């Protein structure tokens, strides 16, 4: 009697559980937290394009824009977790600690933090894109197109992500043109049109005729258009802002990943991981190549793109030397992810020192 009672109790519990799971799986709600306005045509804009892909896949989404990385982030996250969202994407590095803190309180909600490294709880994943692969393409184009052999590069903050980009860009440019020099100006901002334009101007004044950027506004490509030099779009296709200057753009394409992760929550297959996708997985996309580029360069770039996607070519293939001439990666070897994640030295050919 006793046993039967327990058995029926347990089986009804199981039934209840499956019903609940089924009910949740039907309408998964995803939330997105943005650092900037959705209309910035850069970082946040592209994340919102990804959110729209999730909507198009049939899921409900919510977003909060302009959330400062101050004490406010934690409140927004807690409110989203509390109001029936099953998965929350936090799309700026500064949300790392609040994300992990709130994740601890809501073990049933999944958290996905972009560009961070902390996964303190089982319900926190991190994701980032191998933008350096895109910069290998840009470096190849810049090295071919430059006449002054001086290439300008507006950088944001001296963190591995940005150093890696500078190195990848410079290595690719050197491969097609051993005489190039990469000049860096640190803007110490991700988004400040005024500062970015000034930085670009300083580089153009120093003789740079191709400008690359690791900041998010369209100010740099617009400055390049005015000065009659080449530039590359960042995060989104910036061709329409500077049709003559922009040769191509590296686009951040988050949509496929977002749809994938939200579906995983719906299917109950979501698990913690650290994702780092590149051109091959479609997280990094190269925009249309400008017709000002010679045809053979365009076909070369197309081939490079395919080889990076298939893994035949790696952005960091030895021999690679640092500024002082020390060997960083031996001939025939490629840099592993651990080395890439902590990269804090310039390769040979980059001018100046990393600010400390």
């Amino acid at each position, binding site marked *: 009697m006793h046993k039967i009672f327990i058995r029926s109790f347990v089986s009804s519990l199981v039934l209840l559980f499956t019903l609940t799971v089924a009910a949740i799986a039907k309408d998964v709600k995803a939330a997105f937290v943005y650092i900037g306005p959705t209309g910035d045509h850069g970082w946040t804009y592209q994340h919102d394009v990804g959110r729209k892909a999730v909507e198009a896949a049939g899921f409900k989404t919510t977003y*909060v824009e302009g959330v400062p990385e*101050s004490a406010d982030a934690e409140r927004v996250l807690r409110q989203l977790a509390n109001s029936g969202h099953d998965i929350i994407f936090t799309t700026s590095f500064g949300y790392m*600690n609040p994300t992990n803190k709130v994740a601890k309180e809501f073990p049933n909600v999944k958290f996905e933090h972009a560009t961070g490294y902390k996964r303190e709880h089982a319900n926190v994943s991190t994701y980032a894109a191998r933008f350096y692969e895109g910069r290998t393409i840009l470096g190849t184009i810049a090295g071919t197109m430059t006449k002054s052999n001086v290439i300008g590069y507006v950088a944001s903050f001296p*963190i591995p992500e940005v150093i890696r980009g500078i190195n990848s860009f410079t290595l690719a440019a050197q491969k097609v043109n051993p005489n190039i020099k990469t000049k860096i100006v640190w803007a110490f901002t991700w988004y400040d049109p005024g500062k970015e334009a000034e930085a670009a101007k300083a580089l153009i004044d120093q003789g740079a005729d191709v400008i690359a950027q690791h900041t998010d506004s369209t100010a740099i490509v617009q400055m390049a258009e005015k000065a009659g030099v080449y530039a590359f779009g960042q995060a989104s296709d910036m061709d329409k802002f500077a049709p003559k200057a922009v040769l191509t753009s590296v686009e951040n394409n988050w949509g496929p990943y977002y749809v994938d992760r939200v579906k995983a929550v719906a299917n109950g297959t979501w698990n913690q991981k650290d994702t780092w996708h590149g051109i091959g997985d479609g997280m990094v996309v190269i925009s249309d190549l400008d017709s000002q580029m010679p045809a053979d360069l365009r076909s070369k770039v197309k081939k490079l793109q395919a080889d990076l996607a298939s893994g035949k070519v790696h952005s960091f293939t030895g021999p690679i030397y640092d500024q002082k001439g020390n060997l960083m990666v031996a001939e025939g070897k490629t840099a592993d992810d651990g080395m890439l994640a902590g990269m804090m030295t310039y390769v040979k050919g980059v001018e100046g020192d990393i600010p400390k």
Partner: protein
Amino acid sequence: MIKIVKRDQPSRAIFFFTPVLAIFLTLVAGGLIFFILGFKPFEALKFFFIVPIADKYGFSELLLKATPLCLIAIGLSFCFKSNNWNIGAEGQLTFGAIVSGGVALLFYEQEGFYILPIVILAGAIGGMLYASIPAILKTYFNTNEILVSLMLVYVSKLILDYLVVGPWSNPEGFNFPETRQFSDSAKLPLLFEGLRIHAGIFLALAAVVISWFVFYKTYLGFQMKVSGFSLKTAKYAGYKGKKMIILVFLISGACAGLAGVGEITGPIGQLHREISPDYGFTAIIVAFLGRLHPVGIIFASLVVAITYLGAETAQIFMQIPKYTGQVFQGMILFFLLASDYLLFFKFKFIGSKK
């Protein structure tokens, strides 16, 4: 016929009534904006002003948000009452946070009851030091304190940037712009388990009580008031103007510095680039909305704090752009300044007889 007539004396009743009027007009105009944007106005206002504080957690968040605003606004009221236009509270907050954060990092992974008081004191001193720059330049070199204090805001943010990117960045943090997390002994204790409201609220309340006492019960308060009405009168009365200018700036800087301490040793727990969503500037609205009166400032800080929370809730539940929160803050100040007209003028109904 209605005629506009100048009042013999500014009306005291109107003086305290206009902030309420301004808030009311803001609600009406806000509802109208929501309507034009295609949202149901009453529902939107409900999500803006009621839903965010409908539970215990929401209410604690309101107090958490109002604490720095109240603290800074109290400090600013010392300056504004005495005709000193300190616009740089944000810089004083940042510099206070830098000094106190630096001290907190010195005590990294250490324990002791004496750590927190030192950290708090360091923040107040940092704010005072930073506020003393515009004060000294004004008293001895006759510079414009509005410009100097404002420009120093940007300087303080650059110093903070430099420190968190460079020498103070977390050695295990992959060079990302942030320091280590402070040890628990360097953090303000939480008042309730599960809520973020911390002991910093007592600093704000103490500032309210002290400012009330100074304004209305001391000779200094009287001097400030006279200087506020007329600098010449203050001079004829023989008040030591320079000393007072420096004193009010120091008080104001200490309050802003303490607000910075509250943020970094409270909910944030470390230094990074973005420690304040411009509390130092928003507190200027709070100070005026509260009529530079300690009790008024308490209410004003709550009203302004809710515009932050409401903007988040309205976006989450109704997809209203979050930047409407800033529109509300702007409208409150606009309507307050506009309705101040009633302080000095009144409408008079005149019969149509000859």
